[in-house]
């Protein structure tokens, strides 16, 4: 990886964490409500995956702020969405869990666990149909691999040899339930093994995630059909801000935080890319400024008009008479 890209990834990771911390603060302060699922701890995974899969379509879950920003959405528009403002990326109607931006080939922001996976299969079919090569990436958690939508999707995508990357973010938990209590094994790639090429990567190592996603993307583009890539990650916070995170021991949290992807990336930049501590500080400052601006923008943005309640329910209704 070249220095520029490494720096860019690092910046987006720091930006992601700074953004999430600000979101948490403003949730506590009452500016943000509903469910707020923070990606703190998983920034390396989220950013690297988006940077690597820079072309092609992305489908993901409710834990998607960092991905959305790394994908190219303006942090201002994302923060404004969290604040429920009209300037938000979903005009304040979607909130934290429903960020959509087709201009960046980013299709949510889906809060029904596993629900986005069959949609990604369909989109991959469309891309194959259109002869477009970039393929589709669908991100989901370990918990989502226990549902029917996932199993149906690996079967369909594999049978039809679709250009689809199944990217599993395995943080070991679905809310408070440890994956090994609801699945017979810790690593979920096993489920996909009979159907497709599977790979595993350390999700706390941004560079490794980047390389693995790149490799997987080239495989799905070569007509191999789908690939399943599993990234082992760790979320530092509760499932959402409302979750007290009492089901994990101090030791477990310590081990988990010891692998911090931002720290690791920083060390790498210092030791291998010849980036100076001052330059690191500058990057951090830049991220902080960006988030401060996003918060200021969101705070001063206007509320949606009441009439918006009824907008965007249907495409424009034309005269339906047919002859």
């Amino acid at each position, binding site marked *: 990886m070249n220095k520029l890209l490494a720096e860019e990834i690092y910046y987006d990771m720091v930006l992601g964490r700074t953004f999430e911390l600000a979101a948490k603060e403003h949730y506590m302060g009452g500016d943000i409500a509903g469910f707020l699922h923070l990606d703190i701890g998983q920034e390396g995974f989220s950013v690297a995956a988006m940077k690597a899969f820079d072309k092609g379509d992305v489908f993901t879950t409710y834990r998607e702020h960092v991905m959305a920003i790394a994908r190219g959405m303006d942090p201002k528009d994302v923060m404004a969405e969290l604040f429920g403002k009209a300037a938000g990326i979903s005009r304040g109607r979607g909130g934290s869990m429903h960020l959509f931006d087709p201009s960046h080939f980013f299709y949510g922001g889906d809060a029904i666990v596993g629900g986005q996976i069959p949609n990604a299969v369909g989109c991959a079919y469309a891309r194959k149909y259109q002869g477009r090569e970039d393929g589709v990436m669908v991100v989901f958690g370990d918990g989502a691999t226990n549902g029917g939508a996932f199993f149906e999707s690996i079967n369909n995508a594999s049978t039809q040899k679709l250009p689809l990357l199944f990217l599993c973010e395995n943080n070991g938990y679905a809310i408070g*339930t440890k994956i090994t209590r609801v699945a017979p094994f810790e690593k979920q790639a096993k489920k996909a093994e009979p159907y497709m090429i599977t790979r595993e990567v350390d999700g706390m190592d941004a560079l490794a995630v980047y390389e693995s996603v790149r490799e997987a993307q080239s495989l799905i583009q070569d007509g191999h059909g789908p690939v399943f890539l599993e990234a082992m990650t760790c979320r530092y916070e509760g499932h959402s801000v409302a979750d007290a995170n009492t089901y994990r021991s101090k030791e477990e949290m310590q081990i988990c935080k010891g692998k911090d992807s931002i720290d690791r990336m920083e060390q790498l930049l210092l030791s291998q890319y010849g980036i100076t501590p001052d330059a690191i500080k500058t990057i951090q400052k830049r991220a902080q400024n960006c988030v401060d601006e996003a918060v200021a923008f969101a705070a001063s943005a206007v509320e949606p008009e009441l009439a918006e309640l009824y907008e965007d329910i249907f495409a424009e209704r034309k005269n339906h008479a047919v002859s």
Partner: protein
Amino acid sequence: MLYREALNKAIDKTMEMDETVVVLGEDVGLYGGSYRVTEGLVAKYGERRLIDTPIAELSIVGNAVGMAIGGLRPVAEIMTANFGLLAFDQIINHMAKYRYMSAGKITLPMVVRFPQGVSRQLAAQHSESYEQMLSAVPGLTVLAASDVNYAYHALQFAIMSDDPIIFIEHELLYNKKGDIDFETAIDPLKARVVKEGQDMTIVSYLKMLDDVMEAVPEIEKQLGKSCEVIDLCSLNPIDYETLETSLKKTGAIVVVEEDHKTGGFGSQIVSWAAEEMFYSLDAPPLRLAGEDVPIPYNRTLELASIPTPEKIAEKIMAWGNKNGL
């Protein structure tokens, strides 16, 4: 006592009494339930009876059907009604129909708990109500708990009943306070007159009942009339008898529900009133319901999408004035 504690107590009591009662659902065991309804039960009854399931709603209800066939009394928890949609095949094709299709040879003593409704800014995929679909399925008994006492008694009834029961809870009611009357038995299939009155009957259920009660003093003051308020409690079967008695007295009916208006449950009550009570009515029935839109995240829009105490008061007063009530 809180509503969620009353539900907990009801489950606890039936589990203690009857060891065929088991609970299954996402995070119901060690975590204690995402709304803390099953808190503490795993310590008492173990993981054999409090089953933490994968995120697989079709299986939660499907397995419960099989458990019931196999001789258990499962209480399945759906974390939020919207996720329950994944289980609708099992609910409608299996749970509701086995008894009839088997000429009564199969009995399904089971409950599916459905937390639903507009909570606080959970947006379109976490805010819906499905009583309109569930109450339209022959073979299902659908109960809706709007207060602590009913929650306690009706959930016990549901668990010990030999029929498959959908037990609807509202997410904003979990921390509602109230007392349980342990001495007085209730019939969970009967509607409850929450407040007596002479001039109009206001029918509601779940969270909207509280909003109606909040609106009533203003309505009575402004119109100079008294309102009778009825909590339906059971949405299928519907206790038309209680409604009829009230309507014969008041001659006017309002139905208030949170759900989207088109096809909403309240239309059943209004259609009954039009068909059966026409000559007792002094005014056209009034239906207050949510807008026909997905639920938005923004708080102002969210509140604009459903009835609130202020809107309920305002609309009932306008209707009352227009119709000389």
